[in-house]
């Protein structure tokens, strides 16, 4: 007797899979061509020399420039921290309105909250900063608000998703005691989302340290201002020091946020 044959896919399915891969490769090749229509290959060929030259001017970094960077670095940390705090504060009511299982109004307030989340998320913080600098003038305040406005959507989206994943039986149990809606929220929902709430906030702070480092490029304060000035002056040894400083700052924030998240969870 012939042993039974088993195949993961029928021949028609295999053929379909094969053609899908072929199509994917064809699209990739086409995209590559379309993307590079405007590339001037002479410049690209030249790039190793350019890298060597700029790299050479960057090295060694201008260490005695460092004290001037301390204030802007501190500003950058402040923009990120205050911006995150403000963003998280604004995100709390928005996520409450957006979470399907607790929202007080599914057809009016929830769509508004969803719109706020999408609006905040679809605009990059550099663009928020550009807008705010032209409204408020350059400085830290514009940076803080830009970070906050960008963070609201991100934080609110993640919080409302974790609210929607809450164990509904705990809400039932509290409702069954005759508790009001506010009590159901503080007893059954808040304890369940608290760890992810803290994790999300710290994660966003970590991202915001990186984002606030470039906000200075558009005049919203922080280390980015120095970066732009140095690049405009072709002071490459200062640029390399600034990049090193940003790198260390980001590394530090990553370490801090990992520590905090570990402590919470």
């Amino acid at each position, binding site marked *: 007797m012939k042993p039974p044959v088993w195949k993961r896919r029928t021949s028609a399915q295999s053929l379909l899979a094969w053609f899908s891969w072929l199509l994917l490769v064809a699209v990739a090749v086409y995209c590559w061509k379309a993307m590079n229509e405007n590339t001037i290959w002479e410049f690209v060929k030249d790039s190793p020399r350019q890298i060597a030259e700029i790299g050479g001017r960057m090295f060694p970094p201008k260490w005695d420039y460092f004290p001037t960077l301390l204030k802007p670095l501190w500003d950058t940390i402040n923009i990120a921290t205050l911006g995150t705090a403000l963003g998280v504060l604004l995100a709390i009511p928005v996520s409450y309105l957006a979470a399907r299982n607790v929202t007080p109004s599914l057809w009016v307030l929830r769509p508004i909250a969803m719109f706020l989340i999408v609006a905040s998320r679809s605009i990059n913080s550099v663009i928020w900063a550009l807008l705010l600098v032209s409204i408020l003038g350059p400085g830290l305040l514009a940076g803080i608000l830009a970070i906050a406005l960008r963070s609201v959507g991100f934080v609110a989206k993640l919080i409302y998703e974790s609210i929607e994943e809450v164990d509904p039986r705990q809400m039932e149990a509290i409702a069954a005691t005759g508790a*009001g809606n506010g009590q159901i929220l503080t007893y059954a929902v808040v304890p369940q989302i608290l760890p992810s709430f803290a994790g999300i906030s710290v994660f966003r702070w970590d991202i915001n340290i990186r984002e606030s480092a470039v906000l200075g490029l558009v005049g919203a304060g922080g280390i980015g201002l120095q970066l732009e000035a140095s690049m405009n002056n072709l002071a490459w040894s200062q640029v390399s020091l600034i990049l090193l400083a940003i790198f260390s700052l980001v590394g530090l924030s990553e370490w801090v946020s990992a520590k905090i998240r570990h402590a919470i969870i």
Partner: protein
Amino acid sequence: MLEIEKLSKKYPTGDLALTDVSLSVPAGQLVGLIGPSGAGKSTLIRCVNRLVEPSSGSIRLNGEDLTRFGKRRLREARRRIGMIFQEHALMERLTVMENVLSGRLGYVGFWKSFFRRFPGQSVAEAFKILDRVGLGAFPNKRADALSGGQRQRVGIARALLQNPDLLLVDEPTASLDPKTSRQIMRLICELCAERGLSAIVNIHDVPLAQAYLPRIVGLKAGRIVYDGPAQGLTPEVLTRIYGEEDWAKTERSEDEEGAGEQETLKVEKVLEAS
């Protein structure tokens, strides 16, 4: 005294979970609700405190029709109905004491409850009940640090702190081992007797229901197909509730899981009677 009359529940999906269920539970009586999964046991007890909104029919607790109550009066009515859940439904990250005191939320304002400032009388009562269910030693332990049986005891304490007239008990032993199941059932029965509480207990374990609950209601596809004493659960009746099966054998084998002697006797008596 709970009187359910012609209660029906149709879910938005079109499923008829309950059809014309009428049931009356006098004060102090314990009723076991058995039936196959999906028979509507859970829906029935959730309709009583309107965690599920009934589609039609009336539910009268001490003469008042709960189905007609608005939000505020419903909350007041829920304070008098304790509920014990399958897999306890405790707030895992809160302490034992917070979980027990949550039974008083219906009586305490939002900010008082937010800052955990419960009246001294409630706290004293909570300690007393915790002692009674055997958990007096660790009010400050987090709920997720307890064993399954201990958690269910906290759930029982929470329901009792409401000082209810009626207990709704939804599969209290579903996640517990046979020995703990019996301890929990015994505890629930004793507490109901001490306080003169009536209770409706959803339970899928027939021998356990027979051992502890004097009156059994059998539900099948949303209709009551048996309502009578636990001794009346003959193989014919079980077939009416669950469908064809060799009931004599099933009962014996389930019973071997570590039943106390008394309970074994009871079940055997039922078998003899059939």
